């Protein structure tokens, strides 16, 4: 029977247990960075809310997963002992979330800023997402099965789909 590891905003989790599913709910402008080591069969996920930790440094210390600039490194570090290695080799990365509201002035385009910041941060690690389901005008709930690395997305009013 599957054991569900639920992540809230700013939470991150990693597992190599084949009965675990990692899930995060209601990604609005937030983005889930999902990483999977194909060889070690280790999955990790972080639910980031904002691009930069300077917005709230106290929060960044308590929950580094809240911000892109602190969350990516922290997720990779959490996965490393389970993988038995660090670095990008064998790592498949996917991005989910980052919905936007219609705002011509772009102050409210947090989803877009999150996705761009994540792509930039991943590029710094020379990691390039294999798949993305980002943007648009709907919230998403996303899960990854540790055993298979398969990623599933649901959203109100839509059927489940796989990324």
């Amino acid at each position, binding site marked *: 029977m599957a054991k569900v590891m639920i992540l809230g*905003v700013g939470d991150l989790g990693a597992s190599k247990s084949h009965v675990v599913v990692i899930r995060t*709910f209601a990604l609005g402008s937030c983005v889930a960075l999902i990483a999977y080591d194909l060889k070690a069969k280790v999955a990790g996920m972080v639910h980031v809310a904002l691009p930069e930790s300077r917005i709230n440094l106290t929060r960044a210390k308590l929950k580094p997963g809240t911000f892109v600039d602190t969350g990516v490194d922290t997720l990779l570090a959490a996965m490393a002992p389970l993988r038995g290695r660090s670095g990008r080799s064998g790592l498949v990365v996917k991005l989910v979330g980052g919905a936007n509201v219609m705002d011509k002035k772009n102050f409210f385009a947090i989803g877009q800023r999150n996705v761009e910041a994540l792509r930039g941060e991943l590029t710094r690690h020379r990691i390039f997402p294999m798949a993305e389901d980002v943007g648009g005008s709907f919230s998403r709930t996303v899960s990854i099965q540790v055993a298979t690395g398969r990623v599933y997305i649901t959203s109100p009013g839509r059927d489940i789909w796989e990324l």
Partner: protein
Amino acid sequence: MSVREDILQEIEETPLLSQGTMRLLDIFFSEDFTQDKVEDVVTEDPALSSHILKMANTLFHAREEEISSVAEARGLMGDTVFAVASLSSCFPCSCDAPLEGYEAGRGALMRHCLGTAVGAREFIKNARAPVQPGAAFASGMLHDLGKIMLSEYLKGKAPELMEVVLAHEVGDFLDAERGPLGIDHAETGAALAEHWGLNSSLRQVLRFHHHPAEAEEAYRPLVYAVHLGDVAAILGGGDTGADAFLYHIDEGYSGYFKMSDDIVERAVLTVTMEYEKLDACCPDRFGGAGASRPTG
């Protein structure tokens, strides 16, 4: 009888708010609003006290001892959740009821309303003219009352309504609601506000929170604050299901609020942290990570 007439008839038959709840709203909208005054009104009114204690004992059901005083409930909940709990006495349904017509799970409405209240309270810190914090908070909490009345009539229709908005056949989800029902949740909320005899600020907020430029000029700062708070609540992950993101931002906000990327991000983060406090009280009841959701 048309669906619209059915809905308006149902509003006419909705029980009026108690005198205690009306007094509570007066406190939130008064110039000298304080949380202590909210506690006083709740303590003095048996129905409100009972509502708060029931909610507190639900939120903190893991405690061995029952919560027996309003002051103790406030201490445990914190001021924001206490204010939310007291204002939820206005809801014509249980405060964690799902909005099935919008495909929103148990507690999602309450979570969204909390987010909008907190978001509105954050944005008024950058208002070009002062907006009363209690009024912004209460208006944010109650802005979506119309959805409670419409939810039953929209059951099973959400995918179809989303489709017409995403295909640009209509402007936003309000337009989509009017298709099958002949009325939208903003007009419905305003009709309920009138039936209850709510103050003119609340009537304007309920009617125009998606189109604040159409509100009367005197009320626009408050209505825009709720409009922006609504967006912050959704961006923070507290939406009411199928209609999330299917509204436009009225850019007239720049006439009433200073705005920047940082202001928006701080507001959204504050909303997110208030969601966490609600979840810490009760992780499985108000749309938090542990709640059952139709999106699963």
